[in-house]
């Protein structure tokens, strides 16, 4: 049943492509229907899910028997978490794109294609199939940014597409090699995970495939596509890119590189940990220096993804669970932050420059946006009560056990995170000279026509995302059980032996 998250997305694409009804309302409607279906099914399955550690197969049939490739859709706790995230993020993205008027059919068609590709990756348990969906997601990203984006969009789109493609090229090389070395029989991930490749092979296969996937996760120093791409992208695309697509990379690294080549992980984990920490700290420091609001959020995404990578590299179960939890948490929060910056602020003020926004007294004029950003900012800083804290807590515990200096550096990253979030919040919404004024006056230093009020769709999107973050922050136990059960399952047996939990 869960496969319908995937199918509904692609069905939506087909409907949008072939049914020639013009106009934005139709396009939005189809897109919303499709993604709501996906979300609904994900929620249903989530409620029914009993974490037992085994892979639950949805569909499996021989696709290309000549090569041993199956079409194998399945899920465990980790996949379900991320499918849920995708469902939520996709609906929120559509709500935040309710005002797209330019070429709406194509916009939503590309959007749904991206969603479908992402769902496909999370549900695939055949390596070839996973790779196919991974690559399917690249082209819609390019067009979403290049056509509907803003600052420097063509450059940003091309850079993102090429970096992604290079990353997947690295993965392709390792994939072919692994297939050949395992006897050219099968591409099934659970089977490949059992093979146990030689240590020499893993020594190069692991870093190449991990880096290949992690490029998409914003591994420093291959992260430069992320801020440019996210800033260039239209709001919904940024929400998806930072929220979900970056997680594709981390998921791939976990599901493929780490499960298949655990010895390689053991050899390389310290280096990866340092790169992750570099991403956390340097991403935060650069965010502190930005004058474009969206760039602040873009670099903060790199910083937060560093936590995911640190968790993955920490070689213990706390870090691993924390990494997956952070994937979910940051997915929600990135969506929220980009939604506020892109849709609520930029679409009205038409500027993202913090110095210009200072003049505009947004705190009074858009109180909903301000309040949302405050809460989202607190969550992003890692304040307890929000999902980010639980995730970072786990990652720090995991890192602490292994690399004390990295944990301390990550702590530094958190503090800088507070600094840049506050700085952006202050400048954008609560600039000191346009502080709290008597009710009734706007006294904005830059007068302008009245802005449209925050629409129902935006409010709905923002409130739902915030609610989810708070819900997970206050009661994360159920999601952690899912993730833990997945790690305890047969799929990760090889990783378990090496890491030991």
């Amino acid at each position, binding site marked *: 049943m869960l496969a319908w998250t995937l199918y509904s997305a692609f069905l939506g694409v087909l409907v949008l492509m072939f049914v020639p009804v013009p106009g934005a309302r139709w396009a939005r409607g189809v897109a919303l229907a499709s993604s709501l279906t996906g979300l609904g099914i994900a929620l249903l399955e989530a409620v029914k899910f009993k974490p037992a550690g085994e892979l639950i197969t949805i569909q499996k049939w021989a696709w290309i028997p000549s090569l041993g490739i199956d079409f194998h859709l399945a899920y465990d706790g980790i996949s379900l978490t991320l499918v849920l995230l995708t469902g939520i993020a996709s609906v929120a993205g559509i709500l935040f794109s309710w005002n797209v008027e330019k070429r709406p059919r194509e916009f939503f068609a590309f959007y749904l294609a991206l969603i479908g590709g992402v769902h496909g990756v999370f549900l695939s348990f055949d390596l070839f199939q996973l790779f196919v969906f991974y690559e399917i997601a690249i082209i819609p990203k390019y067009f979403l940014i290049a056509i509907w984006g803003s600052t420097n969009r063509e450059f940003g789109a091309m850079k993102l597409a090429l970096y992604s493609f290079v990353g997947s090229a690295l993965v392709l090389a390792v994939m072919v090699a692994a297939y050949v070395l395992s006897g050219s029989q099968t591409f099934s991930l659970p089977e490949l995970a059992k093979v146990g490749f030689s240590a020499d092979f893993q020594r190069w296969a692991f870093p190449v495939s991990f880096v290949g996937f992690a490029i998409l996760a914003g591994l420093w120093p291959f992260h430069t596509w992320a801020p440019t791409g996210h800033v260039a992208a239209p709001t919904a695309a940024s929400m998806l890119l930072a929220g979900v697509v970056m997680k594709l990379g981390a998921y791939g690294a976990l599901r493929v590189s780490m499960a298949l080549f655990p010895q390689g992980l053991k050899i390389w984990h310290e280096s990866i940990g340092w790169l992750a920490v570099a991403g956390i700290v340097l991403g935060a420091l650069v965010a502190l220096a930005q004058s474009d609001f969206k760039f602040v959020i873009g670099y903060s995404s790199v910083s937060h993804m560093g936590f995911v990578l640190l968790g993955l590299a920490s070689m213990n179960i706390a870090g691993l669970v924390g990494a997956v939890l952070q994937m979910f948490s940051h997915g929600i929060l990135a969506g929220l932050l980009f939604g506020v910056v892109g849709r609520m602020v930029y679409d009205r003020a038409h500027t993202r420059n913090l110095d210009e926004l200072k003049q505009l007294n947004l705190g009074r004029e858009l109180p909903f946006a301000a309040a949302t950003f405050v809460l989202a900012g607190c969550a992003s*800083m890692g*304040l307890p009560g929000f999902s980010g*804290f639980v995730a970072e807590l786990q990652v720090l515990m995991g890192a602490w056990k292994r690399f004390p200096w990295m944990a301390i550096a990550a702590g530094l990253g958190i503090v800088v995170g*507070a600094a840049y979030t506050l700085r952006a919040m*202050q400048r954008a919404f609560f600039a000191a000279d346009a502080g709290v004024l008597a009710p009734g006056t706007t006294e904005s230093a830059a007068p302008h026509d009245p802005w449209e009020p925050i629409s129902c769709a935006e409010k709905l999107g923002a409130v739902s995302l915030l609610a989810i973050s708070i819900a997970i922050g206050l009661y994360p136990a159920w999601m952690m059980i899912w993730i833990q059960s997945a790690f305890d399952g047969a799929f990760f047996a090889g990783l378990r032996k090496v890491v030991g939990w």
Partner: protein
Amino acid sequence: MNTFGSLSALIFIPLVAGLVVAFLPARAAKAAKGLAFLAAGLCAGWVAWIGGRFDSAQAEMQFVEKWPWIPSIKVDYHLGLDGLGLVMIGLTALVVPFAMAVCRHETRRVPLMFALILWLEAGLFGAFTALDFFHWFLFWELSLVPAYFLIKFWGGEGRGPASFQFFVYAMAGSVSMLLAFLAVSVATGTFNFLEWAEKGRSGELASALSVRLAWFETFKTQEGLAQCVFWMALLGFAVKVPMFPFHSWLPSAYSEAPSGVTMILTGAMSKLGVYGLLRLILPVFPEQMREALDLLLWLAVATIVLSAFAALGQKDLKRTLAYSSVNHLGYCLLGVFAAMKVTETGGLWSAEKAAALNGVLLQMFNHGITASALFCFLGFLEQRSGGLRGLNEFGGLRAAAPVFCGLMGLSMFASLGLPGLNGFAGEFLIFKGAYALAWAPTAVATLGLLVTAIFLLGIMQKVFWGPLPERWTHWPDLTLGEKLLVTPATLLTLGLGVWPQAIVHWTHATVTQWVGWLRF
């Protein structure tokens, strides 16, 4: 054993009330204030009720509520109250309505302001009753956010940088503390304060840390590792108390915040730091504290003396009082550290230690009341003078407003430590115990007492006595409402001065238990 959720209710009343108030429209300012005040009053009543049912002879945690929250990392929803906790929630319950009343003239964005104050109160209640790190840290951090916004929106000229510095500084300390306590939780496998205390008491903590954490080799010795973790944990509280040299955020934050907010900051929030020392550092890291004791004692002394001298040099009354707060909290630090001194077991030393610790608790409560009152009066001063609060702006107000000067003078004398007023008992007990346990630092610390006296008297002289300038001839005295407002504080000042036993009665059992644990 789970009792009826009295403590949870205490946290949720202001939380929910805050939500309701926040959504009231700006026009309904009066309704907002009324509702907020009602909620705060309700909390005060609730605390009184809890106090009535509190068994002062029992040293164990009472009103315990414990539910599993995140089983996979052994986090529980765990609340409980002992003597220390009771005193703290009592203080909070008193200070918050007081502060709200002082803020009643505010006209800008009233619902939001009172909602933030209510949430701050909820955060304080939560932090003072939590017995599980996750839960405690939640409230500790979350109390920062309303405080930040209260300074940011309603503060003075320099509120932007002041609030920013306040938040980031506190965050840095919190992160350091978080990392340290994560190490402890990894080592002990739990987040429960009581279990940590047991581990710390039995001396197993250092070995547990070195076993469970993989980086033992960096430190060569178990003790080194434990020391490192201790300092990281201490940093968080050192920023909050504050302890020299991590106090530089305080003067700006206190002076830029509006008076009512400053009252809560100094009255209740600053106590979070000392509370943390008592609840978390003392039980968990006794050996590590002992090894660093000399340094700690002299840092406490530095806090006391240097802040007093700094207060002496200020021209802005609010900054003077801010530094004075630092000074008074330094006494708490002195008392706590002195009590850690290694002594042979024996009745005399136990008594000294008990004295010091009782003194600390007394000082926490009394300073809370006194400091709030002082800032309240300062608030009145500012209102009447149209925002001026320089030391040299005034003079001879005694002639124009005798009641005002009299009551403010009373609070100042209490702050000074005049016998017969509430400030004396606490300081006396601390010095008594500390002198016996660590005479050298204590001797130097008395300098702080002296300088405090000097600057407080100086203020009184410059503001109350001397010639009355032209512009203040029509200085209005306290109105009836204001008199009623300061009455509880004044009564407490006088009452507790004469009968400190009222507080010690509640804390005694807890302190005895602590001293018992500190026997080795």
